[in-house]
């Protein structure tokens, strides 16, 4: 199997998170921009600690992931853990497909057919998923150039509107502020699907895994802080009531050549959702194959695609898609899958190695 490089890992993880970050970074409680920035810093600091077991496992067992290690310990445990991850990735796929469709319908073009769009996105992402980690990672590297260029253009176009006085401290008492920060940290951890994705990706990275992972966390923090800073400083308190703040910023941006940057945002957003769904389908397919080892890898990816797309389309058809409440999986899910399971597997394997 082709390996991926550390920069490719960074970009792949970045797009996994980037879709959510450019959609809506804060929780539905709509906090101040400064609260989001403070929470993001705390959340990333926690994530530096959370990834340590996964890194330790990757260092000790460089060619096997946590699932394979758990299978070595017990087949039942391995299947159970695979099932948990499968549900998590499938749920996240449904969530991303639905969110994309929901926001597209409510902000861009209300007349389009949701089912067709979600089906087309799922099929395209499935095709990318069949090409493997290496192909998707290469695509994310190329897309990163487009992503960064687009953001730089948008930022330059709104620099003149930057108002430092919009960056006021949160207007809340200490207790209220603490509660708000805690809620945002939890929300941010809940959105960090990449913590779970890492478990599967790290064995595919050829070198500099630790540096790559820590660089990713640093870049993520920088991106969240910078985008929130721009949104808050340019849009002011109005940003708090928005469902797609970065999109609104792009519509406000204006240069002497281009009037509105909606299309630039749309381009970046579509790339991010495509790469994220492709990665999730790959991971889901891998989990399904772990449970049913005789299943063909691409068929397992196809089954995950079909199930996720059918669920998302059904929910959209029932008009029950409340994206704001259905915003992200919870922080406990990220903590259990991204930290506790790797830690437990690592401890069990260590004891086994010591005994042997």
């Amino acid at each position, binding site marked *: 199997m082709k390996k991926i490089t550390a920069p490719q890992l960074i970009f792949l993880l970045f797009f996994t998170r980037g879709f959510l970050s450019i959609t809506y970074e804060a929780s539905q409680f709509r906090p101040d921009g400064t609260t989001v920035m403070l929470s993001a810093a705390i959340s990333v600091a926690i994530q530096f600690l959370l990834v340590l077991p996964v890194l330790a496992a990757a260092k000790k067992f460089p060619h096997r992931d946590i699932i394979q290690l758990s299978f070595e310990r017990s087949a039942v445990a391995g299947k159970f853990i695979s099932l948990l991850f499968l549900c998590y990735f499938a749920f996240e796929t449904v969530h991303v497909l639905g969110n994309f469709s929901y926001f597209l319908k409510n*902000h*861009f*073009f209300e*007349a*389009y*057919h949701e089912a*067709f769009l979600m*089906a*087309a996105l799922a*099929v*395209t992402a*499935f*095709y990318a998923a*069949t*090409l493997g980690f290496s192909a998707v990672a290469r695509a994310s590297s190329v897309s990163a150039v487009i992503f960064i260029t687009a953001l730089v253009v948008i930022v330059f176009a709104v620099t003149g509107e930057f108002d*430092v*006085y*919009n*960056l*006021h*401290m*949160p*207007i*809340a*008492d200490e207790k209220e502020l603490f509660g708000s920060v805690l809620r945002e940290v939890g929300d941010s951890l809940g959105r960090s699907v990449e913590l779970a994705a890492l478990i599967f990706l790290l064995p595919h990275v050829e070198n500099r895994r630790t540096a790559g992972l820590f660089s990713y966390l640093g870049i993520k923090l920088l991106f969240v802080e910078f985008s929130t800073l721009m949104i808050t400083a340019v*849009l*002011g*308190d*109005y940003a708090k009531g928005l469902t797609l703040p970065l999109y*609104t910023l792009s*519509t*406000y941006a*204006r240069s002497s050549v281009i009037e*509105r940057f909606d299309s630039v945002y749309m381009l970046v957003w579509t790339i991010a959702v495509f790469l994220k769904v492709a990665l999730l389908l790959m991971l889901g397919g891998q989990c399904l194959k772990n449970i049913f080892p005789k299943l*063909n890898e*691409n*068929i397992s990816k*196809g089954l995950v695609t079909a199930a996720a797309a059918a669920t998302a389309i059904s929910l959209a058809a029932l008009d029950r898609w409340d994206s704001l409440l259905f915003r992200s999986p919870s922080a406990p899910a990220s903590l259990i899958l991204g930290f506790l399971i790797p830690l437990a597997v690592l401890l069990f394997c260590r004891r086994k190695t010591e005994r042997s």
Partner: protein
Amino acid sequence: MGIVGLIRKTAAAAAVSAALLLCGCSPDTDISKRLIVHAVGIDKAEDGQYQVSLQIFSPSGSGSDTPLDPSQANMKVISGKGKNVQEGVRECENIMGSSAFIGHNRLIIFGSSVYDEDMDKLLGWFKKENANYLGVTVAYAENSAKEVLSVPLTDGSSTIENVNDIIRFAKDKGIAEKGDLLTLMNKLNESGGNGVAPVLSVVEQDAVPKEGEESSSGGEESGGSGEKPKEKYLEVVGTAVLKDRKFCGMLNKEESAGLLWLTKEMQTCSVTLNEADEPFNAELTDRNTELRLFCDESGLRLEADITAEIRIPGETVRCSPDRICELAEEKIAAQCRAASKKAIGEMGADAFDLEKLTKFYFPQLYRKHKDDFSSLVATADIIVKAECFLND
């Protein structure tokens, strides 16, 4: 071909087919069947309903080579009534048989009949419309909004370009604040429901005969009575100040200049300085303005340190350079005093971003007075220190 190859090719074919074949399945509106809205005017009709006037793009061609004749106004104004702005717009759409596209809207103007209306409520529809540009200029009219929109300005490719140029020019020359939708919405959401916006007025002047036209042609237009034909123009006459989300008064040009100095928005303003009954014109350009907010027992105190450059355009002035600087400094201080006296003293309105500055510098104090911030504003003191230098 293996199963993997088959799956890949099928998936690729499905994706490409979906992209190519389904793009025509969604209903859309052809651009020729759209009303390209350039400006929206809102008035209140006698029956209590809102009268929404849309200035729409209507190209006047002068032959096949020039589908857009820049010597024409290239616009049309249509009006519709409704219980709210949205209904008024729908009425306009029904009249024209096309759906309105608001993505090119450049101006939202409120007529004098809606001075007492809640601005936030009137802007509600614009906030909900995703196509609407957040930087769109928001202004008040001294007359009716429809009257302002109906003035045909023929210097640019479309009338709205000229209207925006007039407002921008007024801002650049220190005549009035330029209000945009985003800034206004942020200010309206403050506890005092504040805001500022330029005020436009329709003025009538004698028409300037066009090249090739005889000067007597105007007489014919006015029915041969010998009266010179009149042409309508737009003028920015001052800055509207909002309080509790409603129009509460207007700052004249002098007071508007003070407002611009105190909000760091001033670029250049033309003033008349007077030395021993010999007035002369000067242009003051803001070089650096620093605003500092203080809070003590007596309340809020805004201190502004203004450094401005003086340019005397083509005149010989008798007084010394030091005296010119002194006069300019006095002028700036007088403008600021006039603005604060009118906005804070008479209207009790926060036109100077005091709430925003307090949130930034004293968040705890703001939290304490959040519900009665207007009372802090009413006692706020503004101290101006101006320093001018002469441009050689």
